[in-house]
């Protein structure tokens, strides 16, 4: 019974920890699919974390804060889209700049607006209350595992099929894929390329805002400088690992969430160093890309 309890606990915290990864990964894969890989996911998340705490505090409502986080994410994504599509700036450089802007900007604002550095956790701000689904949450084990979470956890579950639906079953989604595969060809058949790029990136911005909001108010209610701690890049790793597919990306996020959950639990119980789990997502991506490419090269060699 005790083991079962532990497993359920680890599984439940895996779901919680995977939430920001899933949301950011959906953003990342949209940017990948539209051919404008956004490595500024990290920065947009961090800005979302800050926005949810700042606006939640000012407006006296955490949900209003979540709304602000979404808006801030969208605004930053629009800026990014403007810079890379209209001004034709280099993608990677712009993404890195976005991350630096968010990291420096939030730290600066924290000091200017709230006169603190490091951590800001206003007592007036409440974390999002757990949403226990009626009846379902009373089920033994499963209830605790699946139906007693912070609301944004469920949002992340919804985001997966919705992203897949959008990408594969709607006109704008199919346009987005077409643009990613060949921008010139897409333009030549009359697809509004720039508008679709804005759309893909700005939906991503909203998702990253949500991801950041979950980090800040999903469990506790605080903002800490650089609290995203590389999660944007883990999400990106999941996307590359899954070659841009929504469900597979989400699965990779769950796996990486499990690594994160395990590193907390196993730190005490076993001799596996926590850094091992921290490295695993990145190592897996490098190996996966190498294997995919090796297979491709090998096939070419025979044809």
């Amino acid at each position: 019974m005790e083991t079962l309890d532990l497993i359920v606990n680890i599984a439940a915290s895996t779901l919680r920890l995977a939430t920001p990864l899933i949301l950011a990964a959906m953003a990342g894969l949209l940017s990948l699919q539209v051919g404008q890989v956004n490595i500024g996911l990290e920065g947009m998340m961090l800005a979302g974390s800050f926005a949810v705490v700042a606006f939640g505090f000012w407006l006296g409502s955490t949900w209003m804060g979540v709304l602000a986080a979404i808006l801030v994410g969208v605004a930053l994504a629009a800026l990014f889209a403007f810079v890379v599509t209209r001004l034709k700036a280099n993608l990677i450089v712009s993404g890195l700049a976005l991350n630096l802007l968010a990291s420096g900007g939030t730290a600066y604002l924290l000091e200017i607006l709230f006169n603190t550095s490091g951590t800001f956790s206003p007592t007036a701000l409440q974390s999002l209350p757990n949403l226990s689904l009626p009846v379902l949450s009373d089920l033994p084990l499963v209830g605790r595992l699946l139906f007693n979470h912070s609301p944004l956890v469920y949002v992340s579950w919804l985001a997966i099929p919705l992203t897949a639906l959008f990408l594969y079953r709607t006109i704008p989604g199919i346009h987005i894929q077409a643009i990613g595969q060949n921008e010139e060809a897409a333009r030549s058949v009359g697809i509004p390329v720039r508008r679709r790029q804005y759309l893909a990136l700005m939906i991503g911005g909203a998702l990253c805002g949500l991801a950041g909001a979950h980090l800040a108010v999903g469990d506790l209610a605080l903002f800490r400088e650089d609290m995203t701690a590389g999660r944007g890049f883990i999400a990106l790793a999941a996307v590359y690992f899954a070659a841009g597919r929504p469900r597979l990306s989400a699965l990779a996020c769950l796996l990486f969430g499990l690594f994160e959950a395990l590193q907390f639990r196993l730190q005490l119980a076993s001799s596996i160093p926590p850094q091992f789990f921290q490295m695993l997502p990145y190592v897996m991506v490098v190996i996966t890309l190498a294997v995919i490419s090796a297979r491709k090269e090998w096939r070419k060699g025979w044809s």
Partner: protein
Amino acid sequence: MRALFTGALPRTVLTVLLALVMGGVIMQVSGKDALNAYQVLFNSAFGNERALANTLLAATPLIFTGLATLIAFRAGIFNVGVEGSLYVGAFTAAWVGFTFVDLPGVVLIALAFAAGGLVGGLWGLIPGYLKARLRVDEIVTTIMLNYVAIRFTDYLVTGPFFVPGMANAMSAEVTPQAQLPRLVERSQLNLSLVVALVVFLVVAFMLRRTTLGYEVKTIGSNPVFARWIGMPVSRTIMLVMSISGLIGGLAGAGQALGVNYRFVSGFSRGLGFDGIVIALLGRGSPVGVLLSALFLGALRNGASTMEMFTRIPRDLIDIVVALVIFFTAVEIGFNWLRRRRPTPDAVPPPGSAAEPEKEGVRGNA
């Protein structure tokens, strides 16, 4: 190099000024005196001998990482992995410094730099090999490997090389004769700067006067042509990534032996990333890198004093740097960046039939 005098320099200065002005506007809006802040910043970066020494101290690792990024850029390779090389290089140098305690200073320092550079170079060779032989996009692999390097070195100093009684994760102190001699009094400025300048000369010479330099530039500007005339493109890519990693490793060694006197987990906080900023700002020229490193070093050095005297958070400088990057990235007309808009062809989206061209470096997509 000519470009430095025909328009690139004025444009770079304009870019930087624009970012500084916007930083000033941000300060004014937050109710601070921007003019005064910049004055303090300037004085604490260049005001006296000690200030200048500290600016050079801050610029030292940036010269390394800027050159490391530059040489890859010139070959058309976007190496984001200098940060990773820096970490493994720093640890290796520190390890040599606290392990071979019986060697005389000169030998030990040379050995530590060599080992740091070697391991950094090998670290750079991983994405280099993957790119050259398997056509794996180096941007993704280098970003990922950075995190591996940071976590792995963290593991080393919390696990096998754990030193009891230390508050933070750090290695043992390197033996005194391995600590780099300081160049001036009352500043940590040390021999590492000299090493950086030597590397600068070597890189500048290599790019202008050697066959390798010619190959690098040709591959960077026209990979198809380079292959057609029989240049060893794959080999050169691997070599360049190794050299880039090697210089990154030297940067780490310099910090470990000259500033911290040990390996400190997570010590860099983006020195490798700053290298990208510098290589961009320096517009592909070694001299440009030197000047840009000095500029960024001055900003980073002056920022802490500015924070102390004007109560303006030093994070403002990060905002200014981010703006500089945005403006530079937008304005820059460099072929070696413009040509390479990374497309996700390393992992084609599901259902895509398009095979990427069989080129080590992608041409116009």
